[in-house]
C-alpha cells in the first residue's frame, strides 16, 4: 500500500456530563437540551486514523451525519489533523434508525473515491446500538473488523486485535475494510492552536439527501424500522445495600462486586 485513503465516521453526541433527556413529543434525543461534543470514542477513531496516516501517508476524511451544529464536532476532528470532511445534513433525517443511518453513511462514503479503510467507534455514547460499523460493512460489501484495541496495516492487509467480553481475537482482512475501535485503542491527541487555525481552511462538503440520491420518504422517524413508544427517566438512585461487617465484611463486598460483574 502506497498511501492510505482513510474515512473516519464521527458523531456529535450530548456531553455525558450534562443531563440527557428525550423529547416528550417523539421520544427522540433532545439534542438542544445538552451540550454537544464529539463522541469520545470518535476522537479515538480519529486518532487511530491519524496514526495510520502518519505511518503510511495519505489522507483522512471525516464523515458525519447530523444537524447543522455537528460542524463543531467536524471542526474538532479537522483541528486534530484530519484533512477534509463530508457533512450529511438534512431535516428529513431526524429520527432515523440505525439501518437508515448506515445506508446514508454508505452512500456518502461511496462519493469518496478509492477508500482503503473506514474507521468508526464501536458504539456511540447516546444511542448505544453499536451496530453501525457492521451494517455499514455489509452495505459496502467490505470485511468488518470490530471492537479493535489495536490496528495495524501492512501492505494491503489490515490486522486487528479484537477485544470483547469473550476475550481477544486476532483478525485480518484485505483492504478496503471497515474497522471499529474500542475504548482502549489509544489516547486521542489534543488539537493544537495551529490545527485550529488550519481547520478553518480545510474543505467541508455538505451533502443533502438529494445529493446522495436518497428519497426523503425512506428515512427519518416515519420510515424507521424501530420506534420508541414510551420512555421514562431513570428512577432516582436507591438506598443502596448495607453490609454489616461481622468479620466477613471484605468477603461480602467482593461477593457483591462479583455479582455485579465489577470484579
Amino acid at each position, binding site marked *: 500500500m502506497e498511501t492510505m485513503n482513510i474515512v473516519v465516521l464521527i458523531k456529535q453526541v450530548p456531553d455525558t*456530563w450534562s443531563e440527557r433527556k428525550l423529547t416528550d413529543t417523539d421520544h427522540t434525543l433532545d439534542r438542544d437540551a445538552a451540550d454537544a461534543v464529539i463522541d469520545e470514542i470518535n476522537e479515538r477513531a480519529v486518532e487511530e486514523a491519524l496514526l495510520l496516516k502518519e505511518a503510511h501517508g495519505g489522507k483522512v476524511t471525516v464523515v458525519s451525519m447530523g444537524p447543522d451544529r455537528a460542524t463543531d464536532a467536524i*471542526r474538532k476532528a479537522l*483541528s486534530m489533523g484530519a484533512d477534509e470532511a463530508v457533512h450529511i445534513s438534512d431535516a428529513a433525517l431526524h429520527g432515523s434508525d440505525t439501518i437508515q443511518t448506515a445506508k446514508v453513511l454508505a452512500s456518502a462514503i461511496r462519493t469518496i473515491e478509492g477508500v482503503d479503510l473506514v474507521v468508526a467507534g464501536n458504539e456511540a455514547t447516546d444511542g448505544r446500538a453499536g451496530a453501525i460499523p457492521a451494517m455499514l460493512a455489509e452495505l459496502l460489501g467490505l470485511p468488518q473488523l470490530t471492537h479493535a484495541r489495536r490496528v495495524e496495516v501492512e501492505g494491503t492487509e489490515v490486522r486487528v486485535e479484537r477485544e470483547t467480553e469473550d476475550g481477544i481475537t486476532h483478525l485480518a482482512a484485505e483492504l478496503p475494510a471497515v474497522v471499529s475501535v474500542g475504548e482502549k485503542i489509544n489516547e486521542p491527541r*489534543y*488539537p*493544537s*492552536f*495551529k490545527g*485550529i487555525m488550519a481547520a478553518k481552511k480545510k474543505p467541508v462538503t455538505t451533502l443533502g439527501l438529494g445529493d446522495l440520491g436518497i428519497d426523503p420518504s425512506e428515512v427519518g422517524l416515519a420510515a424507521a424500522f424501530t420506534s420508541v413508544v414510551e420512555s421514562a427517566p431513570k428512577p432516582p438512585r436507591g438506598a443502596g445495600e448495607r453490609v454489616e461487617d461481622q468479620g466477613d465484611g471484605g468477603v461480602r463486598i467482593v461477593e457483591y462486586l462479583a455479582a455485579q460483574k465489577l470484579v
Partner: protein
Amino acid sequence: MTNAREVERQLPSQEARDLLALTSDIASRELAPRAAAAEERREFPRDLFGLLGQAGLLGLPYPEEYGGGGQPYEVYLQVVEELSRAWLTVGLGTSVHCLSCHGLATFGSDEQRERWLPDLVGGDLLGAYCLSEPHSGSDAAALRTRAERTADGYRLSGTKAWVTHGGVADFYLVLARTGEDGPKGISAFLVDGGTPGLSGASPERKMGLRSSVTSQVVLDGVEVPVERRLGAEGDGFRVAMAALDAGRLGIAAGAVGVAQAALDVAVEYAGQRTAFGRPIGEFQGVSFLIADAAAGIEAARQLYLAAARRKDGGLPYGRQAAMAKLVATDTCMRVTTDMVQVLGGAGYVEDYPVERYMREAKVLQIVEGTNQIQRMVIARSLIQR
C-alpha cells in the same frame, strides 16, 4: 472537578471559541487533577508547559509569522484566566513566559526577532524575567547587577531575586546596569539558560504558589554577545516597564481565574451543605457572599478585558492595566477569603482547595508591582506634576 462550569464569555471569533474550548479541555483534564498534590509537594510541572507549548499556548499574543498565535490580548488573557482557574502555577507561569518574550518581540531588531523569536514563542521553551534584586523590588530602577563591556559583548555580574522559573527556565530577560545610576543606565539582555556563570539558587519556600519555582538567579561573569542586547544601551528600563504593563494584565487574568475557581467550589458547597435543616445557600448571610463574589469577579474580568481591548486597538493602556491588576487581585483576595468562610471549617482544611486559593491570591497583590505601586502608577498618570 472535570466538568468545570463554563464561564459565559464573549469572544471575537470562532477560532477564539475553539481555542478556549481546547484550553478548558487541557485545564480540566491535565491541570486540575494534579494541582493540589503537586502544590503540597512543591513539584514544578515542567511537562505541562511542554504540553502547552505543543498545543501552541505559549506564544498566543505574538505574531504568526514568528510562530506565535497572532491572538489579541483579549483572547490570550482569557486563556491565562482558564489555566489559572485550574492551576495558578501554570497560568501565572504562562503569563511570565509571555512577559519574558515581550522584550524581544517589541524591542528586538528584525534580525534579532527572525533569529530567536520563533524559538521563544513557537515551541515549548520556558522563559524568565529578571528585574527584581534582593535590595530593589518596588524601586526597580535601583538595581545593581552590572553589565560591563567586553571586546565582543558584555559580562554580567550580580544577583537577581524572586525570579519565577529561576534555574529552570530556558532563557532569561535580564535587566542590568550599563551606565549611570537610575533608570537611564539600564540595558536589557536575552540570556540562554545554559550560559556558563548563570545559576539558580535553591527555590524560595512560599506560602502558596509552591509548585512554581521562585529563586534568586546568580550571574557570575556571564558572557553575553552584543547582538543579545535588546534595544539601545540605556533603553532597558523602558523595555522592562513595557513588558510589565502587558504582564500586569496577565496577573489580573490569573487573579480572576483563581477567584472564579473559589466561587465554583463555594457555589457547589452551598447547595449541598445543610444547617438548621436547610441548604446553607438559602441563608442570606451566605448567598450574599456568593453574589458579591460573582459580581466582583465579573467586574474584574470586564476591567482587564477593557484594558486589553485598548492595547489591541493600539491605544495607551498603562493606567488601565494598573487599575485592572489592582482591582482584580484585591477582588481575588476578598473573594477567596469569603469563599473559605462559606465552607466554614471545611474551608480551612486541605481537603478542599479554597484555603490554597486564599494563599495563592495573596501573591498576586505583590508581584509585578505591589498594589501600592499600582495605585502610584494610576495616581501619577492623573495628577500632573
